[in-house]
């Protein structure tokens, strides 16, 4: 079986985009679909990590003024701003045979993105666990998870994001902090548009990502549409979790959304 590629996205509805993200990982974990690479965008959203409180990380007033939405993802890490200049990739693969799946995601799977950047002409390196860096500037944030029976990694790629908006909506805590811990490593972010000196098209980036992950996994990619189960699951997740303020703004664990689990059991059957 090759690498299934989904370009399924709902840029105007970030809640649905993140609901689908969980849906396809669960479908992979239940063996309903093969290893899948998804490429997608949001038009105007702040996406926060599983352990973050919205009010601590996001300038909610600025978000409101911009008409952006705040949505939580199911992986750890920090808050990011998404507009159409940012392209997200997400990869869900089988857990079978993986002894250290977290390391596999952060040291191996992440290299699909490095391959893709090389294909567009940028030499990218991996720094500080999961920062993807080109000429000293961070162009991608990554988070991995082992959940629902799948090994999963996703990340952003700043192609031509409005960095002014980005800095307006995200609170910059670190500089203001009285630091007692280890000095943290923080790279300034940059768009690859700036680093390349020209604007790559959306389809060029998509092609490079697909080729980058094909090379990495040694399989051939094929374009596909979401399965009926993935769509149904994403609708349940949207209604009872990702469109709700309790999930997005508070910081509740998955277990607080038990009705989702019950409904998904009926949809995602092996």
């Amino acid at each position: 079986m090759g690498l299934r590629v989904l370009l399924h996205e709902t840029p105007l509805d970030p809640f649905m985009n993140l609901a689908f993200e969980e849906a396809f990982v669960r479908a992979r974990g239940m063996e309903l679909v093969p290893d899948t690479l998804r490429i997608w965008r949001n038009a105007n959203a702040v996406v926060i990590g599983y352990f973050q409180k919205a009010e601590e990380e996001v300038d909610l007033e600025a978000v409101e003024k911009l008409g952006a939405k705040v949505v939580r993802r199911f992986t750890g890490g920090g808050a990011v701003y998404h507009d159409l200049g940012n392209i997200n990739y997400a990869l869900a693969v089988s857990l079978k045979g993986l002894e250290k799946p977290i390391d596999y995601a952060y040291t191996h799977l992440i290299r699909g993105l490095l391959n893709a950047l090389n294909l567009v002409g940028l030499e990218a390196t991996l720094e500080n666990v999961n920062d993807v860096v080109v000429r000293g500037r961070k162009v991608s944030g990554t988070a991995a998870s082992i959940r629902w029976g799948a090994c999963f990694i996703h990340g952003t790629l700043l192609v031509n994001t409005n960095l002014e908006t980005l800095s307006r909506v995200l609170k910059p805590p670190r500089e203001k902090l009285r630091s007692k811990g280890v000095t943290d490593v923080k790279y300034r972010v940059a768009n690859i548009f700036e680093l390349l000196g020209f604007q790559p098209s959306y389809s060029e980036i998509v092609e490079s990502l697909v080729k980058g992950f094909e090379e990495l996994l040694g399989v051939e990619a094929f374009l596909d549409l979401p399965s009926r189960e993935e769509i149904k699951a994403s609708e349940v997740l949207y209604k009872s979790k990702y469109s709700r303020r309790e999930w997005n703004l508070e910081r509740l664990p998955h277990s607080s959304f038990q009705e989702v689990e019950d409904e998904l059991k009926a949809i995602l059957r092996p």
Partner: protein
Amino acid sequence: MLATGESLRKARKGVIRVKVSVDPRTGRIVEANITGDFFIYPEDTVWILEDSLKGSPVGEAKNVVLKVLENVELKGSTTDDFVEAVLEALSRAGVACETLLP
């Protein structure tokens, strides 16, 4: 009245924020909140840690953190970062405790 304390710990990668409230009469933790942009596996250990801290005597907090984080996988932070973050929040609450006690 409860004494509250807050801390913010920078790990090699990311920030760990802890908010605690302590009952100065019993010396026990009433509420613990751990948020931030760290990476911990399994992820839901964060809530297990919060629940384990709740009800613990302040002096036991370090052992509770060490025990809960015994078998987790951290990326970019260490168990010690979590211990320090919790202890610092508690020490701030402790200062508040002294002002509350008769």
